[in-house]
C-alpha cells in the first residue's frame, strides 16, 4: 500500500503510523467544566462512528517528513481519496486554535 504524503509523494505504508478517526475534536476544557465536559471527553476519546466506507483519519509520516496527515480513505477498499496535511504541519501560520 502506498500513501501519497502531500509533501513527500507516494510512499510505502510502512513509513506511516495510524491513529484513527479524525472527526472527533478535542473539546474545550474549562477548569470548572464538571460532568458535562467529562461527558464530551468521554465521547471524544472513546466513541467512534467506525463507518464502512470513506472516513477521514489521522496518519503520521513518522518514517518520513514527520507530518501529521488527514486522509480520506475507504475502510472497505483501502482506497485513498485524498491525503492532506494537518493544519499545523510545517510552519504555515494558522490563526486560530482548532481551525481545521
Amino acid at each position, binding site marked *: 500500500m502506498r500513501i501519497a504524503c502531500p509533501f513527500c509523494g507516494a510512499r510505502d505504508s510502512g513509513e506511516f503510523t495510524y*491513529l484513527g478517526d479524525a472527526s472527533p475534536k478535542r473539546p474545550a476544557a474549562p477548569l470548572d467544566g464538571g460532568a458535562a465536559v467529562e461527558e464530551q471527553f468521554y465521547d471524544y476519546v472513546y466513541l467512534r462512528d467506525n463507518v464502512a466506507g470513506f472516513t477521514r483519519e489521522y496518519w503520521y509520516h513518522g518514517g518520513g517528513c514527520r507530518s501529521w496527515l488527514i486522509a480520506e480513505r475507504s475502510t472497505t477498499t483501502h482506497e485513498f481519496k485524498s491525503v492532506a496535511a494537518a493544519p499545523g504541519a510545517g510552519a504555515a501560520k494558522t490563526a486560530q486554535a482548532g481551525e481545521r
Partner: protein
Amino acid sequence: MEGSTRTVAGQSHRLGSGGQIDRNAPLNFTFDGKTMTGFAGDTLASALVANGVRLVGRSFKYHRPRGILTAGPEEPNALVELRTGARREANTRATTAELYDGLVAQSQNRWPSLRNDLMSVNSLFSPIFVAGFYYKTFMWPAKFWEALYEPAIRRAAGLGKTAGIADPDHYDKAWAHCDVLVVGGGATGLAAALAAGRAGARVIICDDDSRLGGRLLSDGGEIDGIDALDWLQGAIAELSSLPNVRIMTRTAVFGVYDGGDFGVLERVNDHLPQPPEHQVRQRLWRISAKRSIVGAGAIERPIVFPGNDRPAVMMASAVRTYVNRFAALPGKRIALFVNNDDGWSTVDAIRRAGAEVAAVIDPRGKAAVGDYSGVRVVQGVVSDVGGGVDGVSSVTVNGAGGIQKIEADCLAMSGGWNPNLALSCFHRGKPAWRDDIAAFVPANAPTGMTMAGAANGDLSLGACLRTGHAAGAMAAAEAGAKGKAGNAAKASDEAFAIKPLWHVQVKGKAFVDFQHDVTASDVQLAQREGFESVEHLKRYTTLGMATDQGKTSNVTGLAIMADAVGRSIADTGTTVYRPPYAPVAIGALAGHNRDENFHATRLTPSHHWAAERGAVFVDTGLWKRAQWFPLPGETDWLQSVTREVLAVRNGVGFCDVSTLGKVDVRGADAGTFLDRVYINAFASLAVGKARYGLMLREDGIVMDDGTTSRLAEDHYLMTTTTAKAGPVMQHLEFCRQVLWPELDVQLSSATDQWAQFSIAGPRTRDLLQALVDPSEDMSNEGFPFMGVRTVKLRGGMDARLFRISFSGEMAFEIAVPARYGGAMARNLMIAGEPFGVTPYGTEALGVMRIEKGHVAGPELNGTTTAGDLGLGKMASKKKDFIGRVLSQREALTAPDRQVVVGIRPLDKARRLRSGAHIIPKGGIPGPETDQGYVTSVCFSPTQNQWLGLGLVSHGAERHGEIVKAHDPLRNETYDVELCSPVFYDPEGVRQRA
C-alpha cells in the same frame, strides 16, 4: 520436430529427438534412492516421466498411489521431499522443480516405502473415513483425544517432513517500480509486454517458469506466419533490447495488494544444488505498478470418474507438454478422455512422437474440427481405469456400443479449461460464469488490473495475442507512455467447442480433489448433511484446501454440488480466492530479518568502550545497554551489581544514559506547549533550570515521565524514557500539528546527538572539579540542585551539565556531542580515578532508583494514574493539560486503587520477587484477597536485603502493615511489610548536598 519412439539410453520414455532440453547436458538425480538421468531443461517430473516412473506419491488421507497429473504449479499429486539435511523441503512439486545434477528427491507420506505403504490400510476404512467422519466420533473417553486419537491422526496426516533444523540459506527482499506489470510470459503476456514496452512504458514482465513462452513451449503453433517458437525467440530478443523492459523469469506474482502493490517471489537459485556464495536462495519483491496485465493462462481441469486418480492418468495438456517440451513420453499407448476440441490436439502430439493413440473417448463423439482420421473414436465416457500402483493398463468405456475395455498405459483427460483468474479475485472480487467455455471468467478485477488472453477466457492463440497487445497498449497509455505500441502479432483463432462433463455417475471412487482424497460422493454427502454453501463444502470435506488450493479441483467440485442441489453453477459460486497464488517459503517472506538481524540494533556512544571493558549488555527495546561491568573474579551478576551500587553510594560512578529520549522543543510558545502536555507547569521554569515532568494520555493514564530543562527563553530540552522516546515524539507532533497549530513550536529529536552520562555519588563534585575548567563554579550555590548550564571542560570541550539525580545521590548528568562519547567515558575514568570511580550499568541504576522509590517502566505500565504513582499532587489546578479531564473519572480516583508502596520481606535473608502478589496476612489466596503485586525488586546493598516496590490497594494508608507476598508460581509465600517507597535518604539530603 519429428519425434520417434527411439529412446535415450537409460531413459526408457525419452524421445530420441526433439524437445527443448539440452541433450548435451545430462544430469544425474535420485528418486527414493534410485539413480536416474535427465537433461538440462527438465523438471523433476519430466525426468521421471522420461525414466518411465509412474508412481510418485501417496495421497493425504487414504494413501492411495499417485502419479504425475499435470506439468505445472497446479500439481496435486507429485509432491516430493527435495534435497537433504537442513535444506530438505517438504511438498515440493516435481512439476516445477528444475532438475540439477545431484538432485535428491524422496517420495513422502508413506511408510515404510512408496510401493508398500502400510498406511494405505486407510483405504480399507474408506467406507467409514468419509468427509467429516471425525466430527462424529472420537468423543469418548474425553481424555483419549490428546493422548491417543489426535496423535494418530496427526501422524497420518501432514504430507512431507520438513528438516526441523535452521534453514541454512539466505533470503532478501527488494522493491521494484514500473508503469506496467505483466504477469505471465505466454503469448498473451509477451504481446502485452511488447506493446507496452514499445510505447515506452516502464515494464516488468514476470513468469513463474524458468523460460518465457507459456503454452507456446508445449503447443507450438504458428504466429505471424512463422513457427511459434521462432516467433518467441524474436519476441524475447525484442523485449531484451528495450531498456525500459525488465524480464523476470522463475518469478511468480503471488499476491495483489492495495494500491498496485504486488507480492512477487523470485526463485533466484532453486535450480542449483545450493545458492552460490553471497547469493540468496529466493528473493521477495514488492513491485509497485501503475497498471497490471494478467496473462496467467488457463488451467486444464480433470473429469471425475472412478479410477481417475491412478498413476498415469494425466491431463491432456500435460501429455503435450511432456512430449513436446521435454521429449518425454508419458505412455506408449495413450488413450484420451476429453469433452472439448483442445483435448483432441493431444492426438497430434502423441502421433508425432511416434506413440500410439489407443482411442479418443469423447461424450460428443468426434471433435468439432480437425482431421483425426485413423483415430479410434468412442462416443462415451470412461467408467473405470484398470492397473496397479505402477499405472494404467486399461480403461473401461461406457459408450454408445455398451461397455468396453481398451488397453492403454496412459490416459490423457481434459474436462475443459479454467481461466487462471486467482489474481483477479484477491480483492474479493467474484468471477462470473461463461457458458460457452463452461468456465468462470474474471469479473471485478482490482483497480488498475486488466485480465487478458486465456486468463480472461480468450482461449485461442489469436485472441491471446490480440487481447494481450490491446491490454499492453492501453495500460501503457494510461500510465502516461506516449510512444506507439506497434502491431499485434497474428495467429489463427482455433475453435474451442466444449460440452460440459463434470462427473461420470457410476459406482466407484471418483476423485475431485486428488491430494485431499475428496470424492464425488463426499461432495454429495456434504450436501445431504446441509453443508451446501460452497464454503461449508470446502471446510467439511477439505476440498481445495491442499497445497494446490484446488487449482484443478474447485470448479469441478462445485459443479457436482450444483448438480446435487439442483442449482446452476453460476448460482453456486466459487469459494474465496486468497493469496498466495502459489505457496511461498516463509524464509523468503522474512528475508534478511532473521537471527541477529531480526530487528535493528542501536548502540550507545560509549558502546565500544563498554565492550572493551567486558560489559554485559542487555536489550532495552532496540538498544544494547551495559547491564553491569564484571570485574575479574566476580562470578555472579549480583556481586558485580552490588559492588557498582556501593561504589556510587560511597564514592562516585557513572552510567551512559544516552538512550533516554531527548527532544529539542523550541519556539516562542514552547513553554505554553509544555504546560499543555505535562501535568505540571513549565512556562514558569527559569532558564537554566530543570524540572521533573509527568505526562498523561488523554484518558488520564500516565504516558511518560522525564526531566525537562529550559536552556533559553525559547528552548527547552525534554527527556523521555528510553522505551517511550518514539511514541512521545509522535504524540508531541500530534499536539503541535493537530491540536494546537496556533502555537509556535518546533520539535526535533536530539536523542542521537548527545552522549549523556549520569555521574553520581558523594564524590561527584570532586570528579567534576577535576574535569571542568577551573573557572567553573561547581559549588552548591554556583551549581544548585536542578540547575542546568553549559560548562567548559579541560582539554577544550563544552558540555551541558544538568544537576539532576535518579539515584538519590549527589549527581549530575553531563552531555557532550555523541562523537565524544567514548572520550567522555575514558576521561571520566581518568578524572575519577583518585576517587575510585566505577562505571555502572542499568542493573545498578535500577537498584538505586528502587532504593530511592523512583517509579519506572514496571510502574508506568499503562494502567496507572499520577495518583497511583504517588505523584497526584504534581497536577496543576491552574491549567488544562492532556488527560486532566478524564483522569478525574470515578474509577480512576477510587480510594481502593492500587498505589505504589515499598515492600520489604520481614526475613532479611529472604529474596523478594517481582510478580509476587500481595494478600492480607491470614488471607486465603483468591480473587477477593488479591490486593496487588510486586512491580520491581532489587537486592539493596544499603539496606542489606531484598526490597521492592509494588502496587497495592489502599497502599498509601498501609505503611507498616504486615502482609503476605504470595508467589505460587515459584512455590513461595512469605511475610512482607508495606512501607514508604523511599528506602534511601527519604529527606533527599544527599542529592542536594
